[in-house]
């Protein structure tokens, strides 16, 4: 490699790390895109990415990003219809005051929310409802909170819509929506089951406190919103055979769920929808995609290609998932997805194993280890250093068994389905 291309590769890597660091520290609370967009222009300007390649990357990501925006808006509209408040009330009632039954209810609701409305909805919109449920029955919040945050990652493997990483991998895999879901159903259930066992053991003393039956008033179900969400799922499954784009189904659901709030308070709804769609985030993903292309053109991609397995046998699946989990923890799972998925796109099995690693792996450090260090520094600066002891310990005992069990389940699903 000549000096110019070595310099280019180093510059691309430094730019990527700079974008990631900015996104975690967010100086002055600036949105992440403030660094990512100039960085994308920089790598194109320096010729690290030809203009045509940058345009191709943006064009390839755009439909996925549009779909993501629709899902984010759908989750916010579900909140406005009271879906999460109803779920919180339901969890409290189902628990009958027992901490163990509350954990079970949280598992069901958090896994379903993550699968259908994505991990964003679980972390941002469901967690307050989980806290309210724990408070309503006087239970310790810790097991329920960790169940929610862990399932936001480890239960985000079922559908392409459950996680942005899935959407990106789905677009590259060539799988249909139903094939993706069919192959991931087993790994999804197995991951949830193993996660449940680990959390029951880890929090056994918090969960052993006596049940305190407290009468909780039943909250009426937001029937219309639940029917629309159910119909959306059916629509996702039917769209492809009918030749409809998935984003059309999601957009239709947004229009139907948004109609009532839009008529009631048009201006407020419009601004809430715009906030939920999170345009800066969407542009951030596009810009990050271009910066990652710059890195991919350097030697890093060659190194990765040398270690990524070629065959989707059990060992290959385990290695692919392990590399993905490692990359997600070293960097973050979003850039890791952009880097790894093109290398395994030839094999649906390897794509799905990579997705398992990318989604389950982050329970070790959530945002990636580099970013976690920065994040702790930021909170230290604000005078409230977080105790990361529990989530790191819990990550260490849960991620390896959950990941291995899920990959084995994927291997079984691939063999049963006749996939190679």
């Amino acid at each position, binding site marked *: 490699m000549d000096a110019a291309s070595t310099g280019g590769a180093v510059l691309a890597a430094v730019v990527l790390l700079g974008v990631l660091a900015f*996104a*975690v520290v*967010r100086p002055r*609370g600036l*949105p*992440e*895109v403030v660094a*990512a967009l100039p960085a994308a222009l920089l790598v194109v300007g320096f010729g690290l990415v030809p203009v045509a390649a940058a345009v191709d990357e943006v064009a390839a990501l755009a439909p996925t990003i549009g779909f993501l925006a629709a899902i984010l808006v759908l989750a916010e509209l579900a909140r406005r219809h009271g879906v999460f408040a109803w779920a919180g009330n339901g969890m409290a009632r189902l628990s009958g005051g027992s*901490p163990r039954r509350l954990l079970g209810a949280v598992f069901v609701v958090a896994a379903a929310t993550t699968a259908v409305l994505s*991990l*964003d909805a679980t*972390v*941002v919109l469901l*967690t*307050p409802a989980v*806290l*309210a449920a*724990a*408070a309503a029955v*006087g*239970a*310790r*919040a*810790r097991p329920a*909170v*960790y169940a*929610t*945050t862990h399932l*936001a*990652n480890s239960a985000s493997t079922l559908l392409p819509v459950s996680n942005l990483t899935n959407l990106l991998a789905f677009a590259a895999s060539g799988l249909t929506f139903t094939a993706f879901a069919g192959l991931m159903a087993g790994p999804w259930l197995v991951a949830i089951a193993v996660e449940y066992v680990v959390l029951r053991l880890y929090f*056994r*003393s*918090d969960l*052993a*406190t*006596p049940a*305190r039956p407290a009468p909780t008033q039943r909250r009426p179900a937001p029937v219309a919103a639940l029917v629309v969400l159910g119909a959306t799922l059916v629509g996702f499954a039917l769209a492809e055979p009918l030749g409809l784009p998935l984003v059309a189904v999601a957009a239709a659901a947004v229009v139907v769920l948004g109609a009532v709030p839009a008529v009631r308070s048009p201006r407020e709804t419009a601004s809430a929808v715009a906030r939920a769609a*999170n345009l*800066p*985030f969407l542009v*951030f*993903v596009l810009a*990050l995609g271009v910066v990652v292309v710059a890195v991919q053109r350097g030697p890093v991609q060659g190194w990765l290609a040398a270690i990524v397995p070629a065959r989707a046998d059990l060992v290959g699946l385990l290695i692919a998932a392990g590399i993905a989990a490692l990359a997600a923890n070293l960097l*973050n*799972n*979003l850039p890791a997805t952009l880097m790894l998925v093109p290398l395994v796109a030839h094999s649906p099995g390897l794509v799905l194993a990579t997705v398992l690693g990318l989604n389950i792996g*982050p329970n070790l450090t*959530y*945002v*990636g280890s580099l*970013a*976690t260090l920065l*994040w702790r520094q930021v*909170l230290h600066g604000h005078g409230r250093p*977080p*105790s*990361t*002891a*529990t*989530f790191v310990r819990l990550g260490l005992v849960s991620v390896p068994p959950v990941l291995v069990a899920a990959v084995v389940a994927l291997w079984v699903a691939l063999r049963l389905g006749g996939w190679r």
Partner: protein
Amino acid sequence: MTTVLWLVEGSWEACVDAARRLGLRDVVLVHVVDEDAAAGWSGAAAGLFGRGAPRVDTAPFDEAGAAVLDAAVARLGGAPERRLLHGRVEPAVLDACAGADLLVCARDGDRARRGPHNLGRETRYVLDHAPCDVLLVWPGAVPAGVDLPPAP
């Protein structure tokens, strides 16, 4: 005699009932807001990379702690001192015990059998390092079953 009652969700009633039964006066009610749970949530929010760092509202944790103290005051009667503390649980409780004569706390492990699994990690740490006498109470009935080690 000053007594500290360390109150945790799910088991605090037993501590209050013990204080009433023993007629303890000069009681300080202590609850430590669980920073671990809040840290878990804000970590997960930080994991939503690129989304403008969604806000994590820690007020519900404080409200749940205040609710425990309110309920404990109502159950105990009188006007005991109440302290809602933050930070890591174990040092916060030990600090609160400085100058106290007695700490009352509850078991929070396995309630099916008497044995070494009757204490959670934090409770065990506080017992090991308490700067005063400790009264350890069972939440609910004392279990009949017992895990005895083999005779030496």
